[in-house]
C-alpha cells in the first residue's frame, strides 16, 4: 500500500502551493474533477490585491509569468490566465497528483489514515500520516462541509455592449462588478447554500433574462463552472492530523499559492484561524 506523509484533497491553489513546496513523494494531491484551482478560476470569484507582497519564490514566479503575458492590470487582472501557467509548472509533478479521483472512505489506523480512492483504474487504497481537506465542500467529511457553508454564489461573465453604462443599472437578484476589460462585467447571484446546480443556474438565468431594457444588448458569455463559497470558518480539526481548511480566504490565487508554500515551510500545516 502506497504511503504518503500528507494527502491533500482538493486541487486548490493553496494545495498547489503546498505540493510545489513539499519534498518529492511526500505529498499527494487528490482532486475529484479534471480541473485545478476551481475555487478561484472557474468560480469567477473576485480577485484583487495582485501587487500584494509575496513571501515565496514560487508565487513570485507565477506573478512574473503573468506579467510577461500582459495579464496584470490591477483589479482588471486576467485572473484566468494564471491557470495554464499553473498547469505548465505542475508538469514535473504529475506523479504526485491524482486528478479525477473520488474518495470513498477514510479509516483511521495506527499512525494515520487509510484512504479508499477511485479513479479510471478503479479502486486504490493508500495510507497517509496526515489529511488536509482543502475542498469547499469538505469531501472528507461532507456533513461538516454542508454545515460550514454560510453562503454560495453563482457568477457569470457578461459581454457589455459598446456604449452601455452597465454599472449605472441594477438587476434584481444579481450583484454586478467590473470584469477584466471594459467589455466584460461579472454578474453574481447569491443562491441558498442548499441549492443544487439546476436551481442555481435557473436562478441566475432567470434574473438575467429579467434585466432592465437598457441592458438588453448585453449578453452572458459564460456561467461559472464552480460555485463561489463563503464559509463560516477558516479551519477545522476533523480529527487528529485531519484538517479542513478554507482555501479561498485569500484575495487572489497567488496569495493562496503563497500561503500553501508558507504552510510547508513553516511546518505548521494549514495556517488558518480555527473555527
Amino acid at each position, binding site marked *: 500500500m502506497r504511503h504518503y506523509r500528507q494527502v491533500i484533497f482538493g486541487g486548490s491553489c493553496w494545495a498547489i502551493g503546498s505540493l510545489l513546496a513539499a519534498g518529492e513523494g511526500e505529498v499527494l494531491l487528490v482532486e475529484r474533477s479534471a480541473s485545478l484551482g476551481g475555487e478561484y478560476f472557474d468560480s469567477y470569484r473576485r480577485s484583487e490585491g495582485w501587487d500584494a507582497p509575496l513571501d515565496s519564490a514560487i508565487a513570485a514566479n507565477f506573478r512574473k509569468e503573468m506579467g510577461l503575458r500582459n495579464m496584470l492590470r490591477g483589479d482588471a487582472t486576467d485572473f484566468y490566465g494564471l491557470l495554464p501557467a499553473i498547469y505548465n509548472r505542475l508538469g514535473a509533478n504529475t506523479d504526485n497528483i491524482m486528478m479525477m479521483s473520488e474518495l470513498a472512505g477514510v479509516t483511521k489506523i495506527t499512525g494515520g489514515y487509510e484512504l479508499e480512492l477511485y479513479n479510471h*483504474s478503479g479502486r486504490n487504497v493508500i495510507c497517509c500520516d496526515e489529511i488536509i481537506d482543502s475542498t469547499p465542500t469538505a469531501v472528507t467529511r461532507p456533513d461538516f462541509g454542508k454545515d460550514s457553508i454560510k453562503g454560495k454564489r453563482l457568477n457569470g461573465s457578461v459581454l457589455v455592449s459598446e456604449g452601455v453604462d452597465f454599472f449605472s443599472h441594477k438587476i434584481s437578484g444579481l450583484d454586478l462588478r467590473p470584469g477584466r476589460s471594459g467589455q466584460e462585467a461579472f454578474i453574481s447571484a447569491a443562491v441558498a447554500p442548499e441549492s443544487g446546480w439546476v436551481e442555481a443556474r435557473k436562478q441566475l438565468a432567470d434574473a438575467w433574462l429579467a434585466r432592465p431594457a437598457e441592458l438588453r444588448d448585453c449578453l452572458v458569455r459564460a456561467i461559472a463552472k464552480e460555485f463561489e463559497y463563503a464559509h463560516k470558518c477558516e479551519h477545522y480539526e476533523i480529527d487528529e492530523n485531519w484538517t479542513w481548511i478554507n482555501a479561498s480566504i485569500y484575495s487572489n490565487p497567488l496569495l493562496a499559492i503563497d500561503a500553501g508554500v508558507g504552510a510547508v515551510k513553516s511546518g505548521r500545516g494549514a495556517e488558518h484561524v480555527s473555527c
Partner: protein
Amino acid sequence: MYLAELRDRKSVKNKAEVAFDAEYDVVVAGLGTAGALAALSAAENGASVLGVEKLNLCGGSATAGGVFGYYYGVAGGRFEKVDERSAEIQKGNFINGWTFNPETKAIALDEQLSGAGVELCYCATVIGVYLDDNNAPRGVRLVTPEGLRNVGCKVILDASGEGEVCAMAGAGYVEGRGLDGQSQPFSSVRVFADGDKMNMANFDAGYAISSDGADMSRAVINSASLHLVPEGETMTELLWIATIPGIREGRLIECEKTLTFKNYLDGERPENPVAYCFSNFDSHSQDWAFEEDLAQDWMMAASLWGTNVSFPVPLECMIVKGFSNIMAVGRCLSVDHMMACALRMQRGMQKLGQAAGTVAAIAASRGVDIREVKREEYIAQLEAAGCLTIPEEERAVLENAEDLKDALASAAPGEAIWHGSRNIDKYGNDLIAWLADDNANLSRNSALALGTAGRKEALPVLLEIVKSRDAFIPANLRRNQPRILGAVYLLGKLGEADSISVLLDYIKSASGVQEVSHAMMSLLRLGRKNETRREEIAQVLSAVVNASAEYNLLLKSSSKSGEEVSEPMADLMRLIIARELKAWGCEYDISDLRAKRLSWRERRMLEEVA
C-alpha cells in the same frame, strides 16, 4: 449478489449484502452527449431514472467540453427539442455559440431532464455494480457529495464514455489499434469570447489511455498547460478550459453485435437500425503507418479521409454481451477502432442515447431483459422523433470503365482508386492496361488501385512512384495524403523482394516522421517475408531510426485557434523495430530506453521486447 468493481483496471467481484437506499427502474451512468438523452427518453417513457454525472451539468463534450458545434451527423431526434429550447433561452440573452450555446444547452437539459422526472445526481460517480448470479444488475454503488450510496435498479445504461460501468461488471472490451493498443489522440479545448460570439480552440493535445487513472491525470495536466501562450504574447481572456478531457476513443465494449470497418467496407449494413450516424472516418491519428491495413487502404492509398458515409446502427451494438439489462451507450458502443472514428459524433450519439433510454424504460416496466423488447414496441416512436432519417451520401458514381478511367486520370482519384480496388474482377484488366498510359495520373493511380487489391502487376509503377519521388497530392476531400506514401505502404503490403532496395534507398533520404514511419513499416513487412534480406534491413533501420533520431508527429487541430502540438515518436518507432527484429534474431540497441520516462504504450512494448 456480488459487488463488481475495478481494481488495477480489472473487474473484481466479491459477494455482497447491502440494503439499497432507493430503487429505480433505470440508472444512467454519465449524462453526457448520449447519457442525457438516454435519461430523458427513459423518463419520458415512464421509467424512474437516476442520472449520475461526475460533472455538475449535463451535456458532456457539448457543454463542459466546449465543443458547441455539430460535426456532421444528421438532424432528427429528441435532442432537437433540447436545442430548440436552448436557442430560445440564448436568443438575445447569451452570446452565440457555433451550432448552439453550451450554457443554454446545459440549462435546457437541466430543465427537460428534471421536468421529465429524472433525479439528477451531479458531482457523483458510479464506483461499483451489484450483480446477481445471472449477471443481471441489482444496483450500483456511487460516491455522491453527501457520501456513499447504494441504489437498486433494473437496468443500467453505461453512458460514461469510457464504458467504465461495463468494465466494472466484467464485460469484454477492446482498446485501441492492433499494433500498440493506442486509441485516437484526445483534445484539450479552451473557450473564449470572440467579439459577440463564443469561440473555442480545439486541438489534439496528446495521447492517453483513458482506462488508466494515472495516465489520465498526467494527460489532463500536460494538455491544459498547452493553453499558455509564450512569454511576450498576450493571453486571450479565457472563459474556461474544458472541465473534461476531450477523449475520442476509450474502451469499446463487447456487445451482441459489433460494427467493424471491414464489414462496413464490404457493404454489410445492419438491418433494423435504431439510428443513423453520418460522418467521415474521422480519425485523428496522424501516424497512419501504424494503423491496420484496411485503414491504410482507405486513408493512404485512396486518400478518402474526408468522405462522409452513412451508418445504420442497430440496438444490438449497445446490448452488452454476457449481461442482462446493461447497455453500453455512446461512444463506448460495440465498434472496432476504425468504426469508433466515425461513430462518435454528437448528433448520432444523442440519437443512440434516445434509443437506449426508450428501450430501457420498456424493459424495466415489463420486468424483462432488453433483448425481449420487440422492435415494434419502440421503433415508431424513434421514427416519429426523426432518429431514422437516412443521411444522403454524396459519393462519386462510377458506372463503367470510362468513368473509372476519367476519375483515375483526374486530380481527385480517391473514389476511383477505391472503387477499382474493390471491383478488381471487373476492372483488373483495364487497370493493368492503364499502367502503361502516358497520363501519369492514370498510370500511377491505377497502380494504387491494383496495389490496394493486392495485385503484383502494380509493382513496377509503384516502384517508379517512389524512385521518382512523386510529389502528387490528390485533391479529394479533406486531408489528402501524398501518393508516394500510398505507394510506400503498398510496396510493403505486396511483399515483393524487389521493393527492398528501393525502400532502403528511400528511407536513407527520407525526412520527417511520415516518410520514415511508412518506409520503416514497409521494410519490416518485407523483412518478414524475405529472410535473406533481414540483416540488410536491420542495419539500415538501426542507422536511420537510432537513439539520437527525433521524429515528431504534428497532431491535428480542429479549429483555427488551436495550438500546434507535436508528439515525439522516435521511442515508439524504435520499440516497434525492436519487437520485429527480436523475432528475426537481429541486433537492435534500445538499452537507453530503460532509463527513459516512456508513455504507457512504450512501457508496455518495452516489457514485451525485454
